[in-house]
């Protein structure tokens, strides 16, 4: 029954009912047993007392042989309806007798068997017979016999009826009471089970069981709730992890796409680079052939030389751009800022771009403000920005186009606009023109070549100057405008800086010059240039030879490579500085290593200047001019 019950409520009810019924049944059984014994002993005791009284009352009647008196005594038994009959016997004869009005007529014959029997009681069926001796003056004078109903069965039946009624009433009361009381136990459990059900159905871990008791069930409720909270936390954390994982996946996919795009651009760039590098080679070879064939024709040789110069400078610019891009990409490009006047820089840029602009027969219009504009900038790099923009405009404008460069102040900034009436830029392409290796025209039939790094370089350099570079266009065929915005310099500090160019006003001839480089072509070509300018030049190809040469030769200036066999450039510089005969000479480092730390190390080792290959002749001449000034005033001590 307990096992079949589905619910705790039913189980509790079954327990209560089973307990109640068992207790009631045991009680009823005990009471029945007790009642049986008590009834019998009460009846026996009652009848014995009755018989005793009768015996005493009847003794005189027996003694004086008075049956009438005895009968009268017996007749008083009418008051006891359960007594069916009574008799007094003496000496084997019936002295007096009594029969209840409702007793059967032959009831007195029942005594026949008991007549003269010993004292005591006999229960036969539903009748009890009590035999009591009449003793008078220590003599037994007769016997009292009483026959009474012994209604144990009917009494027990009545009793059972009462017990059944009590049982039913008790069970009803127990059911009602337990239904009321068990709520305190079952309802928290049912609430728990209900919530567990709902949690399983809905997978909703935010549900909580209301706590109503502080007993074990209450503890269970607490444990369940905290378990739910824990599960909820964990599943939330899991979902969060999944979300961030998918986000990461997306990011990765995006990064992968970007990488792939960059890779593709790099491939394209390599193809372009190979093409661009190869382009000048054909004219160079042709020029060489012309030089061979032309022999002594000075006009043709002159033409070939000019052609070679143009192609060479084109290649140098290409490689310079590449190097700059790589420096910017690796974060190694640093500016040498000084206070400069924008007009000079613009002029320098125009000078650089002029040959290409003229070659494409464009009209260039430069507009400068009336008052000089001062900037804190690296003049070389800033000039590079403008020349790149001018080159770009010239490139993407059909022949005989118009190019404009206008400078104007705008509050704390200066704005430089380079405009053209060229092919313009599609609005869709505007955001991508500054990306590295990007070229608007990807077709093989494109008219304009280039590496696609010019604009990138321009923008990065502008940004390094704290400015910005933006492109705009009216659309394809409507020209483009590139706008450079740069912050103006604090002009109060202008007086402290003097342009470096002012120093170069000396002679570039008559110096004793030492050139050291293990690249013989470079060393010899530089020596040739310097000798052309009437200088006394000696050449060495390793450090040790250079040192010995310097001690004999006492040069005014030395152009030293850093990477040298036997003794490197840094050590060579230190030795030269340590030697009294060469300590005063001007030392110029010429190296492929152009980073700031290389520059710093060069200065630490005693170099006065640091030039990065490829070296422009103008720079070399400028440095020569400066030592010339010093030499112009003998006795001038070189500052330490």
């Amino acid at each position, binding site marked *: 029954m307990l096992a079949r019950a589905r619910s705790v409520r039913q189980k509790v009810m079954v327990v209560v009912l089973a307990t109640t019924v068992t207790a009631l049944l045991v009680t009823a059984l005990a009471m029945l047993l007790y009642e049986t014994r008590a009834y019998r002993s009460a009846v026996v005791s009652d009848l014995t007392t*009755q018989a005793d*009284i009768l015996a*005493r009352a009847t003794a*005189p009647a027996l003694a*004086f*042989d008075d049956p*009438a*008196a005895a009968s009268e005594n017996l007749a008083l038994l009418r008051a006891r309806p359960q007594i069916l009959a009574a008799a007094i016997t003496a000496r084997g*004869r019936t002295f007096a007798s009594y029969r209840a009005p409702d007793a059967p007529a032959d009831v007195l014959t029942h005594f026949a068997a008991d007549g003269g029997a010993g004292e005591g009681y006999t229960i036969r069926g539903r009748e009890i017979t009590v035999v009591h001796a009449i003793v008078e003056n220590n003599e037994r004078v007769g016997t009292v016999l009483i026959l009474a109903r012994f209604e144990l069965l009917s009494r027990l039946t009545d009793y059972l009826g009462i017990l059944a009624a009590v049982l039913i009433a008790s069970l009803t009361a127990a059911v009602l009471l337990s239904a009321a009381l068990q709520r305190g136990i079952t309802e928290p459990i049912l609430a728990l089970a209900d919530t567990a059900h709902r949690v399983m159905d809905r997978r909703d871990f935010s549900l909580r069981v209301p706590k109503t008791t502080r007993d074990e069930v209450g503890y269970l409720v607490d444990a369940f709730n905290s378990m739910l909270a824990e599960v909820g936390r964990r599943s939330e954390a899991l979902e969060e992890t999944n979300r961030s994982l998918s986000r990461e996946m997306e990011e990765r996919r995006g990064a992968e796409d970007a990488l792939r795009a960059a890779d593709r651009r790099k491939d394209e760039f390599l193809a372009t680079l190979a093409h661009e590098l190869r382009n000048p080679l054909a004219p160079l070879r042709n020029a060489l052939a012309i030089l061979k064939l032309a022999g002594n024709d000075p006009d043709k040789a002159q033409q070939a030389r000019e052609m070679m110069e143009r192609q060479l400078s084109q290649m140098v610019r290409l490689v310079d751009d590449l190097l700059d891009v790589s420096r910017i990409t690796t974060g190694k490009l640093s500016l040498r800022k000084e206070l400069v006047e924008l007009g000079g820089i613009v002029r320098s840029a125009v000078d650089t771009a002029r040959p290409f602009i003229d070659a494409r027969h464009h009209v260039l219009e430069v507009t400068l403000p009336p008052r000089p504009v001062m900037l804190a900038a690296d003049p070389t790099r800033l000039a590079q920005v403008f020349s790149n923009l001018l080159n770009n405009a010239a490139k993407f404008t059909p022949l005989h186009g118009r190019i404009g460069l206008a400078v104007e102040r705008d509050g704390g900034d200066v704005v430089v606009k380079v405009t053209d009436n060229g092919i313009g830029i599609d609005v869709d392409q505007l955001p991508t023109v500054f990306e590295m290796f990007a070229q608007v025209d990807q077709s093989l039939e494109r008219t304009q070549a280039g590496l696609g790094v010019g604009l990138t370089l321009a923008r990065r350099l502008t940004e390094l100057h704290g400015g910005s570079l933006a492109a705009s266009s009216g659309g394809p065929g409507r020209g483009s405008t590139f706008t450079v915005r740069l912050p103006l310099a604090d002009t109060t500090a202008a007086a402290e800086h003097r342009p470096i160019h002012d120093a170069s006003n000396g002679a570039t001839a008559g110096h004793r010059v030492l050139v050291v480089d293990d690249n013989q072509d470079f060393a010899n070509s530089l020596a040739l240039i310097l000798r052309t300018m009437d200088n006394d030049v000696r050449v060495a190809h390793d450090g040790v030879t250079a040192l010995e040469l310097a001690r004999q030769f006492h040069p005014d200036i030395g152009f030293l490579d850093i990477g040298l066999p036997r003794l490197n450039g840094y050590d060579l510089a230190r030795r030269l500085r340590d030697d009294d005969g060469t300590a005063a000479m001007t030392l110029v480092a010429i190296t492929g290593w152009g980073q700031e730390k290389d520059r710093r190390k060069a200065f630490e080792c005693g170099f006065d200047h640091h030039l990065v290959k490829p070296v422009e002749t103008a720079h070399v001449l400028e440095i020569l001019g400066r030592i010339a000034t010093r030499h112009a005033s003998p006795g001038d001590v070189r500052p330490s």
Partner: protein
Amino acid sequence: MIVLLTPRALRAVLAWGTFLPLAWLSLVVPAQGQALAAASERSVKAAFVYKFLGYVEWPDNAFASGDAPIVVGVIGADDVAAELADIVRGRSVNNRPVEVRRLHAGDPVIGVNVLFVGAAEHARLPQIMRAAAARNVLTITEVDDGLDLGTVINFVLVDGRVRFEVSLDAAERAGVRLSSRLLSVAHLVRMGSR
């Protein structure tokens, strides 16, 4: 329920007892009265006298000692005396032996507890009663006017059966007490002053 037979109840029983239907009585009581022989009558009376002793209380000074015998004096009824002597032989009442003493009319009634006067001495009964008066003597007679003459118990014949009547006044005067149980079977109990 216990039936208490108090004296009052007894009197009530006695008052209407005679009207009880006694039809069934014949069934259990053999017809012994009709042919009651003279000898039988004497022996019944002797037995009754003996049985009376159990229902009578005497004052303490009526006996010389705790185990002094109950003395029954018999006047004018030798047959009863003889019968009684047979009955009491070897028996005791209330731990006292019973002694039967034959007396003659005129004998002083001293040291006697019970005095039975036979019908033969009817004439001298008043004298005898006077002698016995105030001496704690239970007097028993067998004449019709016995009670009138002042005896305590008087035998009568009813329907040929020996019955007896009791005078409570006489008992009181004699200084003896009769048990109510005895009264319950008396044929007649006389009360109140004569």
